[in-house]
């Protein structure tokens, strides 16, 4: 409308122009008795020149007229917003400080006051042209971020027990319009019809900044706009389609920003903490898929990953481009970045009957080569010899033998942990099944019980946050969490080792088949029961990856690998990584040594031996492996980093700093290097340089404890008392409460099945406990 006014004004101007330009002048041509006079000629020339000059300047006049209208609309919107904000503020519960509209969340709007929900163009409006985007978005998690039973069940408890104002923490991400619109207050005057659209188009496409990577909705929302004027000023509200079509470049400027393509954009919500205003306790990390990505090989910001890969952002996996089926002006060369954000949520499409989204989600989960399952080795009872790697080593089995199968699960190509974010709600686990040739079950772990719940002794990638009663916080009442009794995951690029032990029956009919699967269910059964009661349909269980091996009773020859099997050197490497994480350093070095044998040219194999020695606090032993790695690859950042730690231990401070600086030159966004270099400078009494490193570290990770601690000291020494106080306060609230683990102990003593799982070295078995004199130590069968 704004430009319509402008255009019509300009048209009127054009029509009026000749009339306005009437000037008293004489005839210019001889006509009858009249003759041409000199003044007449001059006047005529002047008129012609004037008309030409006016014609030349018409576009500018037109634009100015449009801009005037745009300015008027911006001014009108500002006044309307002010009135709206005043009206909301009259009854708004400013529980967390005057003018503070979003605490305990971090959502913010430009101008620091309420945004009228009506100022957000609706998804229907966008979908009028962007049909493919709308279709995908409608089925996505983002559009259903608020209304789903799964979310409402949890947030309702918060609202009922603590008050609706506390829901600003969750809704800064789940329903930003409600937060910024001032709807989360007692006696709300806000029409909540927008709830159904959750994160609508114009929530993401109005974000102007993600100023710090703090999460909890760490965005700054601009006044929603789908068009900018010629000067780039955002014109608030909706405009007719014709205006957008006439100025596609300006539309694009209003709704697209380079920021939207960065992982930092996603960090605004895919990173969360539980702050003191929410829990009345202290800052607790909730989850951070963003940091996990940053630590992964896909970010290329971390020199310490076990493997390397091309740079891939969050969008690279979750917004893959593909041919648009419906009309989509946002498509480029026929492909469009998916607005389905396929990831792990199968529950929402299942509930709403979004079959297309469900199918694509399952396809996404199964086809990404994200995980590798390796039935790596067998160890027989009373025999320390490891038969490994399976498939590449001949061996024999006999009926009646007790064997242990070492299963390695590698998080191969996920850019974050397995499973990320809320591990108290999602459920991934290993199902391990052994059957003989008749189909008789010999051993089964990780099965689903008749009531839909998971075998409690399964090896699961879940966690158990607990409250002050030592009870699992099963309803996602995150504000009651005081400790985490158990948190099992496989971080990006790492591997885990799981041991399963069973006895081959005397009357077995060979061959036996051994299968390990990683299954996934969204959500855990107990939470589904909380949401719906127990009379709900079974929610989908998706097999993410699996591997089966057939074992003969008798001789087992070497077999060919399957298509998805890792090469043997990598299988040993993954075993070494798993041992390292399970604190079994000797076994880890043995595994990495096998990698050296198979790939003597692979520098990381030597670095891995060095790293294991460092973890083992055998610093001088570490030097050999790291030196060999640097011989093969003199600029190897990973080896240099670990060598710096060895140099520090040896008191070679200059060498330490030199190594770290060389790593920093290659990886300026490495949090580890910034941190260690800060420490090195601190120890060298170079406070200014140390401060620079810790400040740079905070720009990467604003929650780093080492940075808070050291900056508190350094600022104080530099006389910057306020900043020192601020850093100290953050250190105190973010560091682990030393009293908290007692609640974990309360939980663990009541849950031996989890207690067993929480020990790095444990075995899954149905066999009775055997005493320690036997060569295979066995953890007791859980009750």
């Amino acid at each position: 409308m704004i430009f319509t006014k402008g255009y019509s004004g300009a048209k009127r101007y054009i029509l009026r122009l000749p009339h306005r330009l009437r000037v008293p002048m004489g005839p210019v041509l001889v006509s009858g008795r009249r003759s041409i006079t000199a003044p007449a000629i001059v006047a005529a020339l002047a008129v012609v020149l004037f008309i030409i000059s006016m014609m030349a300047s018409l576009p500018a006049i037109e634009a100015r007229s449009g801009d005037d209208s745009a300015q008027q609309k911006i001014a009108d919107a500002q006044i309307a917003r002010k009135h709206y904000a005043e009206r909301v503020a009259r009854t708004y519960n400013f529980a967390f400080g005057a003018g503070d509209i979003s605490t305990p969340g971090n959502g913010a709007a430009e101008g620091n006051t309420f945004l009228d929900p009506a100022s957000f163009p609706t998804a229907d409006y966008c979908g009028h042209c962007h049909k493919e985007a709308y279709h995908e978005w409608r089925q996505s998690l983002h559009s259903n971020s608020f209304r789903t039973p799964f979310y409402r069940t949890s947030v309702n408890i918060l609202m009922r027990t603590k008050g609706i104002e506390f829901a600003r923490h969750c809704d800064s991400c789940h329903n930003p319009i409600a937060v910024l619109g001032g709807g989360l207050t007692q006696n709300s005057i806000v029409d909540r019809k927008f709830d159904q659209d959750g994160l609508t188009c114009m929530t993401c496409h109005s974000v102007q900044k993600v100023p710090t990577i703090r999460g909890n909705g760490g965005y700054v929302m601009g006044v929603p706009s789908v068009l900018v004027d010629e000067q780039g000023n955002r014109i608030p509200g909706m405009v007719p389609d014709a205006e957008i079509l006439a100025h596609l470049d300006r539309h694009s400027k209003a709704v697209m920003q380079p920021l939207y393509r960065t992982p930092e954009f996603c960090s605004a919500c895919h990173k969360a903490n539980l702050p003191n205003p929410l829990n009345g306790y202290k800052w607790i990390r909730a989850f951070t898929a963003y940091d996990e990505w940053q630590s992964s090989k896909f970010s290329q910001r971390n020199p310490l990953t076990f493997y390397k890969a091309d740079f891939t952002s969050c969008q690279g996996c979750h917004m893959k481009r593909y041919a648009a089926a419906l009309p989509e002006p946002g498509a480029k060369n026929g492909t469009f970045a998916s607005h389905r954000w396929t990831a792990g949520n199968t529950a929402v499409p299942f509930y709403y009957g979004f079959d297309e989204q469900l199918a694509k989600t399952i396809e996404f989960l199964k086809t990404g080569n994200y995980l590798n399952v390796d039935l790596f080795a067998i160890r027989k009872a009373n025999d320390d010899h490891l038969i490994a790697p399976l498939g590449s080593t001949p061996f024999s089995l006999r009926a009646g033998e007790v064997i242990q199968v070492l299963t390695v699960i590698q998080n191969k190509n996920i850019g974050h942990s397995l499973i990320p974010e809320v591990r108290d709600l999602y459920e991934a686990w290993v199902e391990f099944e052994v059957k003989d040739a008749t189909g008789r079950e010999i051993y089964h772990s990780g099965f689903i019980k008749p009531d839909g719940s998971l075998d409690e002794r399964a090896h699961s990638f879940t966690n158990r946050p607990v409250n002050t009663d030592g009870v699992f916080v099963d309803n996602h009442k995150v504000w009651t969490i005081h400790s985490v009794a158990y948190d099992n995951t496989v971080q990006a690029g790492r591997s885990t080792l799981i041991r399963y032990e069973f006895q081959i029956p005397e009357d077995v009919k060979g061959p036996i088949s051994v299968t390990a699967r990683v299954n996934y269910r969204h959500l855990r059964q107990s939470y589904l029961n909380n949401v719906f009661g127990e009379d709900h349909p079974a929610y989908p269980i998706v097999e993410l990856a699996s591997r089966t091996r057939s074992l003969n009773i008798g001789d087992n020859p070497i077999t060919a690998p399957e298509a998805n099997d890792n090469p043997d050197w990598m299988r040993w490497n993954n075993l070494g990584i798993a041992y390292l994480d399970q604190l079994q350093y000797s076994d880890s070095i043995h595994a990495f040594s096998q990698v050296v044998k198979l790939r003597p040219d692979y520098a990381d194999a030597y670095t891995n031996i060095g790293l294991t020695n460092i973890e083992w606090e055998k610093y001088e032993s570490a030097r050999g492996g790291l030196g060999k790695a640097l011989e093969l690859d003199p600029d190897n950042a990973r080896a240099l980093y670990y060598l710096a730690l060895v140099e520090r231990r040896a008191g070679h401070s200059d060498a330490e700093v030199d190594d770290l600086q060389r790593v920093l030159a290659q990886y300026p966004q490495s949090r580890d290097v910034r941190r260690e270099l800060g420490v090195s400078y601190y120890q060298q009494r170079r406070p200014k340089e140390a401060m620079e490193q810790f400040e740079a570290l905070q720009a990467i990770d604003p929650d780093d404890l080492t940075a808070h601690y050291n900056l508190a000291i350094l600022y104080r020494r530099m006389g910057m008392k306020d900043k020192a106080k601020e850093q100290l306060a953050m250190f105190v609230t973010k560091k682990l409460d030393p009293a908290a683990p007692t609640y974990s102990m309360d939980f663990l003593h009541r849950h031996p099945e989890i207690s067993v799982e929480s020990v790095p070295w444990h075995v899954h078995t149905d066999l009775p406990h055997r005493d320690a004199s036997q060569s295979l130590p066995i953890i007791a069968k859980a009750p």
Partner: protein
Amino acid sequence: MKRLSWICVATFSVITCGLLTPAVCRAEQCPWLNAATAGGFLGGEVKMSVAPLTLRGDTTCEFSLTQNSVTSTLRIAVYTMSQPSQEYSALVSKCDGTKTPLRTIGNEAIYCAANGSTGKEQIIGRVRDRAFVITVFAGSRTKGESGPSEEAINLAQQVAGALF
């Protein structure tokens, strides 16, 4: 002495209101939907009345809007069921019009299109052991041709959402 008695009565009233019968004394708010959202649905500023909460936290809210001497109403009644399967079935059976299952509302829900030209529409649904009945007397509001309007579904999702 008389003054003291009044103070005692007042104190007793406050305690009673605060602790024993909050439903009676609480400021009138509908727990399932706010008046602004109801107003958005009916098309203007609405009058709201809320029945006292029962001990189980149930209540009925009614919103009404009169425009051009035509009155539209929206009533939301919530009941906690002791025997959900039976009581819910009984509630659904009260629908004397055409029943259409609605998948995305609560645990389960149906749309009940009244026979005749009463202008009445109902969505009956359940969240765990709580049933809700949303009744709309359309007034000037147009109702869906063969099922509930998108607005009515959204409204029912709001109500069910509040009950989860």
